[in-house]
């Protein structure tokens, strides 16, 4: 690269202090909805975002379906039945509170977004008469057309609508700022959260935000096991800069986490080895219901959960005889028999029967409305599909009435991965929350992907808005607490120190990320045991002690990438501590130990929690159903909201 003049002012020596009532960290779906909710409660709100809030976050470029909106007028399933099914499907290892909020309030948020200018109905009557459309409300449903709790939506319109609404309500938006730490009362770990520090990603300026309440809406961790230095942006499904800053800063502040020992073998959108999500042949999520054919054109049959071959396309979208509804979508992998929907017969079985590779997704023979809703509505409105898949494939000549698209894997996968190549995917661990979406740290709330066992757009929007309400209530009874100067100075020193190192002999962010990823693959792969986990932890602690002080960044942008990898290093240690704490294998957590007595297996069906007290790790536990009766508790904590509707 030629030498370019840095186009932004360098302000590493500058500091800005800002005060508000409610401080929202992260401007994705959850963050924007949290900010809107608090602003509607008359709070002075600041939202801090690392990218550009108008289209940033995992759902910034779009979203094609909204799951679990069980209170929409067409839904045949109650929020209680749906949440209980989600809980049962994961043997209880799931966030009952946050998913109940999603099921109960998701529809309210859709109506909200519609008022802001987002499109949630087929107002242009493009799909009039389609099996998935309700003619009266013009709502369109996905997957289970009888139960009608998952909606197809025009999600490219959502994020810009939220952004405009925030502007309208006077939310102060600070963009291009990475949050690097939480400020706590008297600088104590475990003390009440009173604000946060940040660094400008272009100028390096240091920010100190003070808030009466803080809502952490930062994304889930990534790039723990999977890294590609050439294609960092293709390492995982979530955006490049979403690597789990929130988990790391929460850990350092003393927040409590759970389910962090759960990881899955990499399955989706990873390290550049997968094909573009929703851009290769498959019949899941966005592409659910597509026909799959072999290389001679022979169709792979769909079957119900009992293996009965389905004769028509229409049957792909209805529950089996005697089944009240089926589960499908981003949070559902290998559903239990009770909730399993129609699917194609297993590819391996088909190959044994003489079907020939490669297989293709075939939209040509589908009813016109089904073809058009997959290719054109879903592939176009989903994140990362409008331009890179829909427009680009169309321009290159792809015609869904004529062409078939090659499959490169089974289900929604499009590449194969080794057992030690893992991801936090499919309801991974995160912040432990109570019924107010508060963490164990006073004044600190969490929403969206930051929460344990979280996933998807509707969940992020519903929990963000909910946390905004409860944080506002707290803020209105609290005063601003002055921050501890020493804590802020320590943080400033930590984040600026790499700039003073010698580039000739220092280590860069990519080398460190790869070192962490390989360590995690070696010592925290699919099959775990105490010896390996303990050595892994020692290796990471060595990195922390000896490598982190020897790192270097050339400019503020690269410094932020490096600070992110420091956070990845922190999160990796949370994972190792959590793995060490769980003593027996657990199928529901994809947690497999070689050194546990099989007789003990299943005995520890509880949530294991981890947090730091005085920089020492403290392990705790909670019953998996600690949240109690869903409806009763929800109503107890949300009387105002229920009454106010």
């Amino acid at each position: 690269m030629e030498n370019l003049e840095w186009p932004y002012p360098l302000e590493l020596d500058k500091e800005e202090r800002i005060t508000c009532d409610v401080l929202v960290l992260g401007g994705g779906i959850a963050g924007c909805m949290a900010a809107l909710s608090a602003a509607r409660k008359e709070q002075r709100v600041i939202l801090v975002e690392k990218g550009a809030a108008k289209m940033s976050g995992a759902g910034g470029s779009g979203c094609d379906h909204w799951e679990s909106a069980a209170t929409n007028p067409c839904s045949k399933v109650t929020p209680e039945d749906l949440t209980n099914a989600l809980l049962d499907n994961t043997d209880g290892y799931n966030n009952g509170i946050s998913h109940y909020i999603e099921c109960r309030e998701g529809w309210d948020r859709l109506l909200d977004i519609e008022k802001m200018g987002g499109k949630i109905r087929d107002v242009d009557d493009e799909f009039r008469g389609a099996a998935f459309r309700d003619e009266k409300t013009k709502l369109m449903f996905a997957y289970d057309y009888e139960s009608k709790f998952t909606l197809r939506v025009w999600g490219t319109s959502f994020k810009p609508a939220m952004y405009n609404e925030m502007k309208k309500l006077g939310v102060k938006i600070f963009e291009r700022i990475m949050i690097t730490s939480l400020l706590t009362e008297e600088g104590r770990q475990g003390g009440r959260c009173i604000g946060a520090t940040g660094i400008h990603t272009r100028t390096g300026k240091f920010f100190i935000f003070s808030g009466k309440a803080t809502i952490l809406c930062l994304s889930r961790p990534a790039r723990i096991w999977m890294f590609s230095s050439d294609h960092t942006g293709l390492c995982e499904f979530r955006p490049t800069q979403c690597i789990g800053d929130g988990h790391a800063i929460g850990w350092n502040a003393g927040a409590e986490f759970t389910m962090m020992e759960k990881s899955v073998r990499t399955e989706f959108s990873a390290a550049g080895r997968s094909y573009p999500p929703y851009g290769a042949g498959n019949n899941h999520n966005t592409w659910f219901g597509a026909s799959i054919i072999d290389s001679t054109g022979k169709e792979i049959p769909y079957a119900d959960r009992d293996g009965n071959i389905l004769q028509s396309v229409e049957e792909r979208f209805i529950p089996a005889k005697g089944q009240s509804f089926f589960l499908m979508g981003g949070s559902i992998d290998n559903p239990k028999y009770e909730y399993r929907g129609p699917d194609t017969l297993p590819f391996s079985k088909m190959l044994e029967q003489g079907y020939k590779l490669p297989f293709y997704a075939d939209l040509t023979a589908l009813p016109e409305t089904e073809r058009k809703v997959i290719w054109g509505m879903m592939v176009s409105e989903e994140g990362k599909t409008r331009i890179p898949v829909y427009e680009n494939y169309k321009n290159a000549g792809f015609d869904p009435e004529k062409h078939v698209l090659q499959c490169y894997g089974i289900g929604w996968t499009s590449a194969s991965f080794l057992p030690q190549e893992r991801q936090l995917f499919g309801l991974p661990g995160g912040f432990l929350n109570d019924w107010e979406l508060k963490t164990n740290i006073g004044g600190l709330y969490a929403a969206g992907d930051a929460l344990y066992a979280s996933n998807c757009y509707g969940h992020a929007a519903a929990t963000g808005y909910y946390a905004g309400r409860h944080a506002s209530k707290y803020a209105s009874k609290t005063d601003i607490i002055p921050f501890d100067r020493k804590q802020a100075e320590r943080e400033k020193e930590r984040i600026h120190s790499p700039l003073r190192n010698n580039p000739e002999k220092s280590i860069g962010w990519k080398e460190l990320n790869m070192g962490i990823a390989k360590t995690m693959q070696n010592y925290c792969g699919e099959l775990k045991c105490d010896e390996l986990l303990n050595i892994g932890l020692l290796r990471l602690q060595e990195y922390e002690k000896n490598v982190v002080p020897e790192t270097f960044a050339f400019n503020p942008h690269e410094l932020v990438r490096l600070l992110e990898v420091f956070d990845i290093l922190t999160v990796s240690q949370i994972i190792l501590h959590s793995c060490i704490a769980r003593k027996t294998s657990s199928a529901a957590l994809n947690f497999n130990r070689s050194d546990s007595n099989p007789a003990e297996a299943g005995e520890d069906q509880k949530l294991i929690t981890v947090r730091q007290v005085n920089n020492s790790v403290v392990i705790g536990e909670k019953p998996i159903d600690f949240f109690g009766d869903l409806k009763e508790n929800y109503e107890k904590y949300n009387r105002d909201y229920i009454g106010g509707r």
Partner: protein
Amino acid sequence: MINKNFVDYSEMPASKPIIFNPEKCTGCNDCVDICQVDVFIPDKESGKPPVILFPGECWYCGCCVMVCPSEGAITLRHPLMNQVHWVAKSELGSI
């Protein structure tokens, strides 16, 4: 271009996610402002296409193209290894 008097020490990136058409780009920098990963910097000369400083960090979301006011000014291109194969159904079995 390589000749014996001049060797460029630059390195071709592993992928080129974004290609600007300088004829169509007005240098408005809307793409620089929307990119959440911040892969671009504005060109020092106003009216010129931005510089793609960090191509490997591109997330391939396409927001830069979505907000571009000048159609055809930006092309987003998946790396070769991620370009997908399709075929006319009528040609299946004839390969």
